[in-house]
């Protein structure tokens, strides 16, 4: 499996650390109800098909990447930097 890091180019999967679903980007407000935190931390769509998840280029540029890919075929559809995503900055 190879990911194309927006900064470093196409690299082997072993340069990256996987970090779970995109959901982790949507951190609830500190005072959000417990259910919101439970959903944020634990509950997942976990689709058999296209998903978006997080990868860390720790053997490269230390970028966190948001990868759109297919969990059945392993096809990589898009890679973008988490820091650059729309509405990303708090």
């Amino acid at each position, binding site marked *: 499996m190879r990911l194309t890091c927006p900064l470093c180019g196409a690299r082997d999967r072993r340069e990256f650390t996987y970090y779970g*679903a995109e959901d982790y980007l949507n951190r609830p407000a500190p005072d959000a109800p417990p259910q919101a935190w439970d959903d944020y931390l634990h509950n*997942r*769509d976990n689709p058999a098909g296209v998903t978006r998840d997080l990868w860390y280029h720790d053997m490269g540029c230390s970028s966190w990447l948001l990868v759109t890919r297919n*969990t059945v075929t392993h096809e990589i559809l898009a890679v973008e930097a988490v820091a650059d995503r729309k509405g990303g900055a708090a």
Partner: protein
Amino acid sequence: MRYSGLRVITEGLFGNKGWKPAWRDPAPKAEYDAIIIGGGGHGLSTAYYLAKNHGMTNIAVLEKGYLGSGNIGRNTTIVRANYFLPGNSEFYSHSMKLWEGLELDLNYNVMHSQRGLINLFHSDGQRDAFVRRGNSMINQGDDAILLDREGVREMLPYLDFEQTRFPIYGGLYHPRGGTARHDAVAWGYARGADRRGVDLIQNCEVTGIDIEGGRVTGVQTTRGAIKAKKVGMVVAGRSSQVAAMAGMRLPIESHILQAFVTEGLKPVIDHVVSFGMGHFYISQSDKGGLVFGGDLDFYASYASRGNLPMVEHVMEAGMTLMPMIGRAKVLRSWGGIMDMSPDGSPIIDKTHIDGLFVDCGWNYGGFKAVPASGFCMAHLMATGESHPVAARFTLNRFATGHILDEEGTGSQHNLH
């Protein structure tokens, strides 16, 4: 038909023409008392114990492929009861007791072989953690022995005690740990359930779960609608998809775990050996193949296949620990789809929908749990109450913070 050595000889003398089907191929009925979605190890054992322990025989197991087509046939066949957290400890201990009577109970030789499991440790800190575990095992009534380096050398002289990157300090020996023939477990439970009247329905994919007024009423399948007031989802590997049919979002992420088997070799590894400094565990099957595995490929996947980084890592671990296996050749690799729960422990629970139950989240340790999982799921489905040894495997424990995290890596999917 009852199996026995005498039967094998009698049938052999008459050309093996008399063997009967191991199970029927019934057409689905319009309604059952209970339906189990999933004809894998856990689903089949659930059906078996529903029939055996609770007298529920008007039940069906619905399997979208063939019986035992999931992880029951794609694992490294290890059976152990070496957990240390209350909640896990009593459950796996119960499972071990069921394993120990399984052949006679099922009248099927699942080749449960208590050849002993040795968890190696490679630092003082690891030793202390294993001591805590071993003491938990003994407190639970199971067995554990602390081996020092020389004790390990006596049992496993072929390990590399000199050059390996992480020296072997000792091991936690679990004499009752071992292996079983994975497919036989599925077949034994299938045959046992079928003999008690359970309908095992293959090539029958569930496409919908019928819910009325917060109560489950049945399922839609590729072979028609089937009514039932109780439905159990026992589909590890596909739990999220099936639960979604009931509008549920589970605390599950699906991952690939690869395993490997070599060509047949004369006996060389007599125990189950587990490396402490990298995921690597190995045993030798009765056929002679070295059966071994490692860590998850580690990305959400339903592909049932893995990639090279983990393949190489597992082989490297093997080479640093026991370089005598270098010339064994890997014959086949495969990848199972693991239901990873946030804390690494399973879920056997009711859902918010009346009559709908879930058994999932077996992570990479579902095989050894097959007997107790079915036993407890059957108890839950029949009585509506959790069995005491599975009482902590609740769905809401993440919401409440009653985490069962044996590895201590964190109760989030991304922290394993």
